[in-house]
């Protein structure tokens, strides 16, 4: 679950999840759907994504930077994300998708990077929420 947030120059999103792993999955889905239209992406292959950080905040920024690298550097269109392991400093996840094809996967925005600007991760009992701003 996510929604897009306004920023004077760029774009952000608010994502939610029932647990921290789910929060990381929905944040990745938010980023991917800002970059391209995921509707026509086939879950043809799966890749392993990893990230490290010294806090939930840096782990989230580094995780989203990993997702962005696969989208922009490896030209991999993502359909879904599943966090396989998560502790306080490491994250291992699986992403399903296929090679980006401009005919089928409409590019929405080129995201340059994930920022720490007004970054938030909050736990409201059974619900986790994060807010992330992207440089576009």
């Amino acid at each position, binding site marked *: 679950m996510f929604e897009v947030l306004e920023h004077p120059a760029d774009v952000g999103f608010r994502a939610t999840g029932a647990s921290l792993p789910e929060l990381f999955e929905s944040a990745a889905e938010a980023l991917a759907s800002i970059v391209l239209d995921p509707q026509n992406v086939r879950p043809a292959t799966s890749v392993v994504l990893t990230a490290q950080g010294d806090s939930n905040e840096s782990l989230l920024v580094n995780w989203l930077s990993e997702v962005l690298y696969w989208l*922009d550097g490896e030209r991999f269109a993502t359909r879904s994300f599943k966090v396989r392991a998560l502790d306080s400093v490491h994250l291992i996840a699986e992403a399903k998708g296929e090679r980006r094809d401009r005919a089928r996967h409409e590019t929405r925005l080129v995201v*340059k990077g994930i920022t*720490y*600007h007004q970054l938030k991760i909050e736990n409201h009992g059974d619900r986790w929420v994060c807010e992330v701003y992207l440089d576009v």
Partner: protein
Amino acid sequence: MSERLELQPIDEFRFRIPRSVERGMRTDVVVYSSRKLIEQIRKDQSLDQAVNVAALPGIVGPSLAMPDIHQGYGFPIGGVAALDWRQGVVSPGGVGFDINCGVRLARTSVSLDEARPKLRDLVNQVFRDIPCGTGGEGPVTLEKDELNRVLTDGAASMVERGYGEPRDIEFSEERGCLVNADPEKVSDRAKTRGRCQLGTIGSGNHFLEVQYVEQIHDTRAARALNIEKNQIVVLVHCGSRGLGHQVCTDYLAQMGEAMKKYGISIPDRQLACVPIQSPEGQSYLAAMRAAANFAWANRQAILHFLRGAFRRIFGSETKLDLMYDVCHNIAKHERHEVDGATLEVLVHRKGATRAFPAGHPELPEAYRETGQPVLVPGSMGTASWILAGGEQSMRETFGSVCHGAGRLLSRTAAKKGRNAAEVKSQLEKQGIIVRSETRDGILEEIPEAYKDVDEVIDVVHRAGLAYKVARLRPLGVIKG
């Protein structure tokens, strides 16, 4: 919001936030603005961000805000800060994700009258030959060793490969290359992201515009820059693409850790910084220079393909000469006079353009008496400006001025209640043809989303930081 900050007017175009207002400020903030612009500026967090910059260890002189300032990440966009070369810090956020985002202007031998009837063909040709790159590969793909050469040598590496003319190099800031760039400091990921993107514009606020010289404001300078009324020029606004973005990402991640080692605490994690002379600081600068060189090579490749497109439409004798190329996201090692002493500083220009005045030894011979050309793109469909560096820039702003109009509306607000086809047809009624690779590219960059560029230019002109040479109007716009 910055509305709570106390702003003391210094004169009509200068405002000060004294260092006493926030704990941790090591220096004042000086804002260049007008009474009208300052009210818009105070509505976002940009002045708070300029205050945070004033807290960086080793800052020399004030934290500076240009009239196009708007909220960024860590540093404000339109911010300038000089850090002592030996005692100060370097902050990747003070350069930004798009290292050496900049502007290149080519003057052509085509006149407005010649261009009008062929404008649609020209815009279509340029759109075909110079992709925005949102869908993938660009027109130049490099092997690993070739890419390393680009990272070391910048624009010259492209000219050697046949993408340009030898004289292009002379008319670029730093001759299109920062020395002491180290490709080994650039990660394989950054190289993978950038390898296929040479010769592409990118998206966001990046664009390529076919324009004409609407008005000359300084005849002597215009003559030196070889431009005249109703001449067709082309303005290219883009940077180091995915390669630069990844360099920033990589070093921001490293610096979070390194800051603890150096005992640096900052008000905003996006301002992460390390001492310039530390191994981490030197590594970042070597990688940043490499990314800057990639950006110059990118704009050089674009100029090459632009020449091809113009010659296909207007004939093989058509000339496109590089007038100048400036970067506006960069950190540069420079010498400046501060309180009567010459200091070595690292000038962070985050959305700010170098503007060296007449007589500066780094200017090409042809522009030595004019001052450095400063290229300021406006919003889509309005106007852009050619300025030249003024005397006050060296005295007050470490040789820097504004870089654009400055954003006013968020992307979401810009899109609200509008559709791309209507915006396109409104622009066409004004004689402006727009092509975009993405549906939202046009909507997010509508003229109403930006401040009035003429107002911004008036401030820097009247403050003596740069002076007006010519106003340019768009005819064809290509956007990501």
